[in-house]
């Protein structure tokens, strides 16, 4: 049953297993969905979707698949429901529906007065006595009145299904879970969850065995018949050391809130062995700054970094990589401070050479190839670049852990 829906969801990238699908079928068998689409929506969501970040995606797909059968009034006669139950039709009409919708939006005003529609609907329903397909007056399928099914009018009344709680499409329409989407620019808590991926428990042999192990001591003591035997173990600690370099140039101002969130999350994630943060303006040159103001003098030499923070540091550079070509390629390109005899590009190459694990997070990365953004394309070729979103951050963390 609904196998088409299962295939559709999988094709569109929802990660659903057969076991979950069978669970849903079991729920259907037990009558947990009633016979309403709205119940089906909730039950299928709770069984198939296991993360609130996927709710929005699921909503969109559900709407796409079932867009023909909209419903929220319950006082419709059975016959009318049968006419409207054209699930088999909707695959066929899917394309047409899109065109239709487009056409309708041009034809009729997008937003209609709900009460007025309802009134008209009651009136039409009272008068109607036969099935209708197409047309612009009666309740039926593929029509362009505000009532009925498969119709193009987006603001109208839907017929069918039962009420009980908020209709599926009302919920979906609100897109309440839009904020949870994985590809959205993310917030603090989500940052922190992503940053937790960056962990590497030491199983290294060079650490001393200096942590008292109660369990093993008890076991060993029992083994030796009550004669006390103390066991020490190597401590398990996260050995990840992090160097965070943040762009605080003028073009980054729109992202200052986001940068602040990232900064907070990194520093709240106190499970790292060490975190160092420095700032730069547009590109990294001979000096990096101690604070986001990037004032001349309040800085340390980039080479000091190379000397003092060894290559075991994992480096995250955050910036929009929107330098002017001369800022990147000219050895006098730094208009705010010294260049140190090298162009920005060379300094970036030095970074890359010193730190094996290095990623670039970009809050406004262009998708795919963006030849018009020369600097970004160049930097991308040198340092793996990810968009500063939940998904991007996860990928970046995976890259750092590889």
């Amino acid at each position, binding site marked *: 049953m609904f196998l088409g829906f299962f295939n559709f969801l999988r094709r569109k990238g929802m990660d659903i297993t057969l076991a979950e699908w069978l669970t849903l079928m079991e729920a259907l068998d037990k009558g947990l969905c009633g016979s309403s689409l709205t119940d089906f929506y909730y039950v299928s969501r*709770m*069984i198939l979707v296991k993360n609130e970040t996927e709710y929005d995606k699921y909503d969109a797909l559900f709407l796409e698949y079932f867009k023909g059968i909209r419903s929220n009034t319950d006082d419709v006669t059975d016959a009318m429901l049968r006419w409207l139950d054209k699930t088999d039709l909707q695959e066929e009409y899917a394309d047409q529906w899109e065109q239709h919708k487009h056409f309708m939006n041009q034809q009729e005003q997008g937003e209609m007065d709900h009460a007025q529609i309802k009134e008209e609907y009651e009136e039409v329903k009272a008068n109607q006595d036969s099935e209708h397909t197409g047309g612009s007056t009666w309740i039926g399928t593929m029509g362009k009145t505000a009532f009925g099914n498969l119709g193009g009018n987006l603001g109208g009344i839907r017929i069918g299904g039962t009420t*009980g709680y908020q209709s599926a499409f009302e919920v979906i329409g609100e897109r309440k879970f839009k904020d949870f989407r994985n590809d959205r620019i993310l917030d603090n808590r989500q940052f922190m969850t992503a940053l937790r991926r960056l962990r590497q428990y030491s199983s290294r042999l060079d650490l001393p065995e200096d942590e008292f192990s109660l369990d093993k001591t008890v076991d060993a003591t*029992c083994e030796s018949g009550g004669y006390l035997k103390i066991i020490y173990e190597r401590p398990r600690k996260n050995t990840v050391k992090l160097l965070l370099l943040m762009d605080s140039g003028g073009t980054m101002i729109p992202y200052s809130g986001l940068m602040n969130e990232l900064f907070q999350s990194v520093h709240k994630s106190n499970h790292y062995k060490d975190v160092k943060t420095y700032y730069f303006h547009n590109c990294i040159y001979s000096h990096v700054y101690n604070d986001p103001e990037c004032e001349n003098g309040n800085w340390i030499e980039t080479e000091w970094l190379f000397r003092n923070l060894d290559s075991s540091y994992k480096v995250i550079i955050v910036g929009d990589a929107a330098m002017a070509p001369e800022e990147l390629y000219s050895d006098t390109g730094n208009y705010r401070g010294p260049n140190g005899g090298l162009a920005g590009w060379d300094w970036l190459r030095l970074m890359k050479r010193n730190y094996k694990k290095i990623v670039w997070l970009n809050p406004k990365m262009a998708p795919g190839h963006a030849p018009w953004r020369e600097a970004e394309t160049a930097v991308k070729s040198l340092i793996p670049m990810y968009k500063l979103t939940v998904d991007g951050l996860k990928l970046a963390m995976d890259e750092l852990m590889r």
Partner: protein
Amino acid sequence: MKEVFKGSSTYVASPELMSAVNVSIALGKPLLIKGEPGTGKTMLAQAVSQALGKRLIIWNIKSTTKAQEGLYVYDTVQRLYDSQFGEEGVDDISRYIKLGKMGEAFDSDEQVVLLIDEIDKADLEFPNDLLWELDQMEFYIHETKRTVKAKHRPIVIITSNAEKELPDAFLRRCIFHYIDFPDTKLMREIVFTHFDDIEENMLADALDAFYAIRDKREIRKKPSTSEFIDWISALKLSGIAPAKIKETLPFLGVIIKKDEDLEAIKKTGLM
């Protein structure tokens, strides 16, 4: 379905949540509840146990909790002591096997509600270690060669604050529900279950102020439902004039717990 959960006198559940509870009971699968702190995840289990008249067993998870502890613990130290002092029955290992919370739930003679609270606090591998037990509702005690099998499949409710991501294999076995922060309408209902008589003016103004605070971008820790309830009771006790609530924001410390957030609100007011 013989038992249907419809919320309880002190707990207002959204229809989606009720349906999630009922589906999970009917399918015999654990219900995983996620949501902001203070949205009543833990209270849900209490409400379910109360509404269905079943005993509630709570297993609180901490960062050091091991899956094994929930099943059973073999008290070797006690046995060692007893053997040294020549106590009787030392050779009977089963005397030293103590069932954990999950074991208790399985071993119970009647169906119980088992709450596994804040599962994300534990180690990353923790949920995976419970897969078999949650699926089959049984486990094996090596020391006594005994299999503990659930006489009545417990209603399992698991809560998570999303501090860690849970493993896929675990998620696939659960019914999932995300408790969204209640809207004003639901919040009203929640308030009414806690207070019998409440002035309409006061409630309306307090709600306005509360949601305005939550909407502020500068606030780091958004106040939760339970904090709102505390605030209402403080406002009620003080008998402050409703008109003043939005203006003066009395007892702000009840809902705002961070100094920075307090500063931010004092500086900008509600607008």
